[in-house]
């Protein structure tokens, strides 16, 4: 639909939505009320028989673990879709990095100091998901962003060597498969898919909660690998791949450099520093 029709439709529907939403929201219990029946039962189960201190992790990986399995596979499918979409097109080639300025020494120092700290914090958050706020999803993202300090503080080629796509894809698949395997083990040993069949340990121990730490680990590996894959794919597109001079016959794209008219300027990584000249790394 054209722009005008879109705007007219929005102008008509938005006030109707606003009024209906306002009326609906007035029927909700007021903000901060005491009536949470499901929450009371979830907390009682988590702290009682499951001995998991972090009730949110218990809900995610124990009481409603099948929903998390679904989310895990949405993540997996999205990463597969993105990798397929970000394949180099036939008329593009790996032109190597553009020469640019150097990384500031302070940035490099900060990056090299923060990289082991971030990776350690990420692993800690994954491992302690059942005790303190954290878990597979949060720790996996922290781990992935720590990995990318290699690009910010150093060179893109360092990141590409330290995070080869094949290894990452295997790691992500192993994470998703491990979750399903633990679920099937629960089916075998407990009678239902994703039963919590390991001994629950004592409250506030590192190994409490039964299968929750294992599922946390599987999700953490899968999420970290997924996000590093996504960011590496986008970095590859933005920093390295460039169109050759002759497009394929019959294609509808022009021949000029796509970034010539962009408002960003040169190919600089986003920390404000630039990648170093890397002539030896031509593929």
């Amino acid at each position, binding site marked *: 639909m054209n722009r005008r029709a879109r705007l007219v439709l929005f102008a008509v529907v938005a006030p109707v939505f606003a009024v209906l939403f306002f009326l609906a929201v007035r029927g909700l219990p007021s903000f901060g009320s005491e009536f949470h029946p499901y929450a009371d039962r979830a907390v009682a189960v988590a702290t009682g028989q499951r001995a998991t201190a972090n009730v949110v992790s218990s809900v995610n990986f124990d009481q409603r673990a099948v929903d998390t399995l679904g989310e895990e596979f949405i993540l997996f499918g999205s990463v597969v879709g993105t990798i397929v979409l970000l394949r180099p097109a036939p008329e593009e080639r790996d032109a190597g990095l553009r020469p640019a300025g150097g990384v500031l020494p302070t940035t490099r120092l900060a990056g090299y100091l923060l990289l082991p700290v971030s990776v350690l914090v990420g692993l800690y958050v994954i491992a302690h998901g059942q005790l303190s706020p954290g878990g597979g999803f949060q720790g996996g993202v922290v781990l992935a*962003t720590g990995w990318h300090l290699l690009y910010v503080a150093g060179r893109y080629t360092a990141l590409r060597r330290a995070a080869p796509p094949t290894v990452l894809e295997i790691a992500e698949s192993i994470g998703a498969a491990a979750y399903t395997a633990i679920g099937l083990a629960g089916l075998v040993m407990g009678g239902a898919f994703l039963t919590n069949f390991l001994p629950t340990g004592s409250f506030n121990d590192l190994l409490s909660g039964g299968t929750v730490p294992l599922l946390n680990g599987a999700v953490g590996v899968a999420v970290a690998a997924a996000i590093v894959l996504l960011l590496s794919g*986008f*970095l590859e597109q933005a920093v390295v791949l460039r169109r050759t001079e002759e497009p394929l016959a019959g294609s509808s794209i022009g021949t000029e450099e796509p970034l010539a008219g962009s408002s960003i300027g040169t190919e600089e990584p986003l920390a404000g520093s630039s990648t170093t000249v890397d002539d030896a790394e031509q593929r």
Partner: protein
Amino acid sequence: MMLLIALALGLVAVTGTMVALTQQPARQAVTLSVFGLTLAILFMTVQAPDVALSQLAIGTAVVPLMIMLTIQKVGGSR
């Protein structure tokens, strides 16, 4: 406590409006990062540290980074 939550909600509403009204994608990546930060603050005031951890890493670092890399490739105009 309620005052803090109300303040955080106000910040979220204002930065959300700014994100939608910023037309240049390069600038919008920065406002999106700030919006992610205000959301994380709101989640903390509502006693949700797990959600705030997730939102902080994703909303301030990963999504604006992907948007800026896409703009780099696509050549963001108005």
